[in-house]
């Protein structure tokens, strides 16, 4: 039976495998080739094999440390915020109240739009001359002068994070909501009978049962935050003073601004390796969670 069905199995998988193989095996090979040769767009005929020179360039690059720091700072703000926002929103949406249905639909809207829209809209709202955020804060008397949010390195990172949360938070919320809805309400009734308060119920029932979902969302959001590009492109262009030059922006700049494909490819490899390591780490944690 197994042998007979193998034919069918392979055939049904063939188209998918063809596409995936073409677009994963070849790119890795080609990226490797690029990273081992000198490839500078303005010097198209000079492509000697340079071994690990490009990797060394990328690692010793003046930019690497600062972009790693920027990315780390951004992720430290963005990932927890997304998780917390998602959890709070999911808890809220799980309750039945007037308008819950509208909110459940509305919450999906920011995620449904391209990330660039989030960047554009928030850049507009944070503008130092006519941004509505400044306008509101000014009229409420909280500030005396319009603040150029995106002109100051620290505030620019915050602005980026806010746009990120606006867009990614809803997805986390939906995931958590789905997770919450798989928890049987009987558990809560039983806890209430036992005299446990809401907070205790949350800690003892909700959180443990939600853990697998939390890990999945955490993995996903970490990767998304680490490879943020769209927002940087439209909101800050990496500035000011490279404060928002995240690692993926740096890789982009290597190719398009510095026209060095070799180093760009090497850098991309390094990023991929690091992310892979992070993911494997997370997966290990997930597996140990599942075993529990």
């Amino acid at each position, binding site marked *: 039976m*197994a042998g007979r*069905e*193998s034919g*069918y199995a*392979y055939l*049904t998988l063939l188209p*998918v*495998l063809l*596409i*995936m193989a073409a*677009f*994963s095996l070849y*790119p*890795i*090979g080609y*990226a490797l080739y*690029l990273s081992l040769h000198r490839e500078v767009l303005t010097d198209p005929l000079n492509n000697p094999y340079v071994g690990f020179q490009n990797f060394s360039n990328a690692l010793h690059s003046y930019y690497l440390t600062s972009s790693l720091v920027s990315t780390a700072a951004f992720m430290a703000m963005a990932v927890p915020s997304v998780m917390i926002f998602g959890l709070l*929103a999911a808890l809220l949406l799980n309750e039945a109240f007037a308008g819950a249905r509208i*909110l459940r*639909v*509305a*919450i*999906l*809207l*920011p995620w*449904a*739009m*391209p*990330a*660039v*829209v*989030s*960047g*554009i*809209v928030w850049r*507009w*709202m944070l503008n130092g001359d*006519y941004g*509505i955020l400044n*306008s509101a804060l*000014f009229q409420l008397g909280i500030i005396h002068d*319009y603040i150029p949010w995106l002109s100051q390195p620290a505030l620019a990172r915050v602005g980026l994070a806010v746009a990120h949360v*606006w867009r990614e938070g809803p997805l986390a919320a*939906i*995931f958590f909501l*789905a997770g919450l809805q*798989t928890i049987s309400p009987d558990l809560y009734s039983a806890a209430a009978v036992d005299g446990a308060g809401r907070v205790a119920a949350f800690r003892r029932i909700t959180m443990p049962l939600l853990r697998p979902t939390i890990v999945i969302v955490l993995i996903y959001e970490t990767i998304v935050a680490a490879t943020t590009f*769209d927002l940087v*492109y*439209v909101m800050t262009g990496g500035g000011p003073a490279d404060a928002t030059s995240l690692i*993926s922006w740096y*890789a*982009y700049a290597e*190719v398009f601004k510095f026209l060095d*494909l070799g180093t760009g*490819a090497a850098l*991309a490899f390094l*990023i*991929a390796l690091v992310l892979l390591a992070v*993911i494997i780490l997370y997966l290990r944690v997930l597996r140990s969670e599942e075993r529990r």
Partner: protein
Amino acid sequence: MLVFILGPILWMLDSSFQGETELLTRPSHLLPQQPTIANFNYIFTGAVPQGLNVRGTLRSRISQEAREVPAALENSAIIALTVALVNVALGALAAYTFARLKFRGKSLVFNFLLGTRLLPAIAVAIPYYAIVSALGLLDSYLGLILVYLTFSLPFTIWFLRDYIISLPIDIEEAAQIDGCSRLQLLLRIVLPLAAPGLAAAGAFAFMSSYNEFLFALLLTQTISSQTLPVILSSVATNPDASLALIATSVVLAMVPPLLFAIAFQRFLTRGLVAALGKG
């Protein structure tokens, strides 16, 4: 919460009806005091908004790129729809195989498929560019469709596999005894049962393709295939484009995803619950 989520969207809508001068007032006007549809007019007909001439700028603050927004919407929709349909078709086919069949190399292939998703986009950007270019598919629908398929298929297959596993197997076993082939099983019995899951998977595939930016930026050069995020970001980061124009473009861009999200919201949540309930 509602303000935070919906506020920006509504503000954009609001702004698109304000003229350039009004947009620059401090503090901002919450409601347009001199509403105008001049900017929408420009995008669809090319008539330069009068407000720009009055403001005293010597140069016209327009960019022709804004007029490409409707065409970009069309490109995005076609590409995303194709990706979604192919995803559902090929994905369901493959997912059923993973869900119900035993064969040699099953977990290897499955892990390979999932593993490809671990590569961050920026790492494969140049090689993807090289492949698409070598195939002569730069600036074409097919190039983007193929690339987006490689991004979306793994998730679709994983998701549908879990979904199909959650379906009761009795009906299939009964039909098998009756002599149905695997393919017939899939087409006649499983797919109808899995319809909500298929809708959810298709919706995810549609949205992720529609919203994709980096590869659309790299692999397309002219409006014959440039998608919405690319045109939009180009207009929005152009300091020579007036703010009112940008707001209008953003509003137009928001419409399809909004409609789509509202329509498919139920499937998405239900699908997620189903998938997560197993894991």
